[in-house]
């Protein structure tokens, strides 16, 4: 393709090709510190392309393609090329990842042990992970946690942190010195601004961690913590995994081990300060 780049996020290598220079430049800029795919062979290919040649210039709209595609994925305007690239990489993970059990969860690490946060969209898992990073935790990922079926360890996937709407000023205030991407208005999810994970998180991206706590945060309620039974956790996590079925018995083993060995809690919270305090309290009590 006319414009191309490659990068590695945790254990996963990507190649990105584009009909336009913009998306590649945006990715190269924000992922500047990231390594290259192992052996120069990416796991996945993402393609951003114009449906018809003249649509490269005329009302340019970015179609997302690659090794794995959804037939009805709607194109994005070129101004949102960075989002298209991110969506393309996420799509490869969601549809094509077969080495690790993929959990739709954010993950942070301290002392070699990982905290996983998952739950419904809007529960704040991304924001909480970013705030914990601001407090010195290592960010392993704001979107996907990768569980290795062979070892039970969690591998990091520290892509750019995707901040939406109200989370943007919260993180701008919490991390005034951090690197942010451009403010992208009018995306399918409102306003989005990307936050580059801090240097410590990037330097340690190849170090896996032992899962130690699973949280199901829920925003908008009085602070309350409740134990979640293994069977309930199992059910929730199968819903939060895009490749549980595809991993067959390896997926069953990985998830069974996770829910029997790692405690799980539902955490209701009214505001992020309460949530962070409760997370620190739970962590200290493990």
């Amino acid at each position, binding site marked *: 393709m006319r414009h191309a780049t490659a990068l590695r996020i945790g254990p996963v290598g990507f190649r990105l090709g584009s009909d336009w220079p913009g998306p590649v430049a945006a990715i190269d800029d924000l992922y500047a510190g990231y390594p290259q795919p192992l052996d120069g062979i990416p796991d996945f290919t993402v393609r951003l392309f114009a449906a018809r040649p003249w649509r490269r210039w005329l009302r340019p709209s970015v179609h997302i393609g690659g090794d794995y595609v959804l037939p009805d994925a709607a194109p994005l305007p070129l101004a949102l090329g960075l989002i298209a690239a991110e969506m393309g990489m996420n799509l490869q993970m969601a549809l094509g990842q077969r080495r690790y059990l993929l959990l739709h969860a954010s993950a942070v690490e301290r002392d070699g042990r990982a905290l996983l946060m998952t739950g419904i969209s809007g529960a704040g898992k991304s924001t909480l992970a970013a705030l914990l990073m601001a407090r010195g935790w290592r960010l392993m990922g704001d979107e996907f946690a990768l569980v290795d079926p062979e070892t039970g360890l969690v591998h990091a996937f520290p892509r750019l942190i995707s901040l939406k709407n109200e989370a943007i000023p919260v993180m701008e205030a919490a991390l005034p010195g951090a690197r942010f991407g451009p403010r992208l208005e009018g995306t399918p999810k409102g306003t989005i601004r990307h936050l580059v994970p801090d240097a410590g998180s990037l330097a340690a991206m190849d170090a896996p961690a032992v899962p130690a706590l699973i949280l199901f945060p829920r925003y908008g309620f009085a602070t309350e913590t409740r134990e979640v*039974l*293994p*069977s309930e956790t*199992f*059910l929730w996590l*199968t819903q939060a995994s895009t490749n*549980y*079925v595809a991993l*067959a*018995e390896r997926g*069953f083993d990985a998830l*069974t081990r996770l*829910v*029997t060995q790692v405690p799980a809690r539902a955490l209701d919270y009214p505001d992020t300060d309460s949530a962070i305090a409760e997370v620190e309290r739970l962590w200290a009590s493990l």
Partner: protein
Amino acid sequence: MNRYRAAAPATLRIVPLDALTLIYHRASGITHIVDSPVPEILEALAGEALAVPVLLARLAERFELADGEAEALAARLDELAAAGLVERL
């Protein structure tokens, strides 16, 4: 009368968790999350195919069964047959 036979034990991974039990069915690749008495039914039907009254008698040796359980058991067996964990012969 219909007889029922369970999937061969070697094709099942059964992991009791808390109130519920996980069953990974190797032949189908499907995970089932089940409550009692499903594991017991599968165990009773593992070796040989049984008709409902015989199965009911076997289960009665292990559980307190109330009147009208035969119909409920037949319904459970049809669900298990639809899920492929039990085959109707």
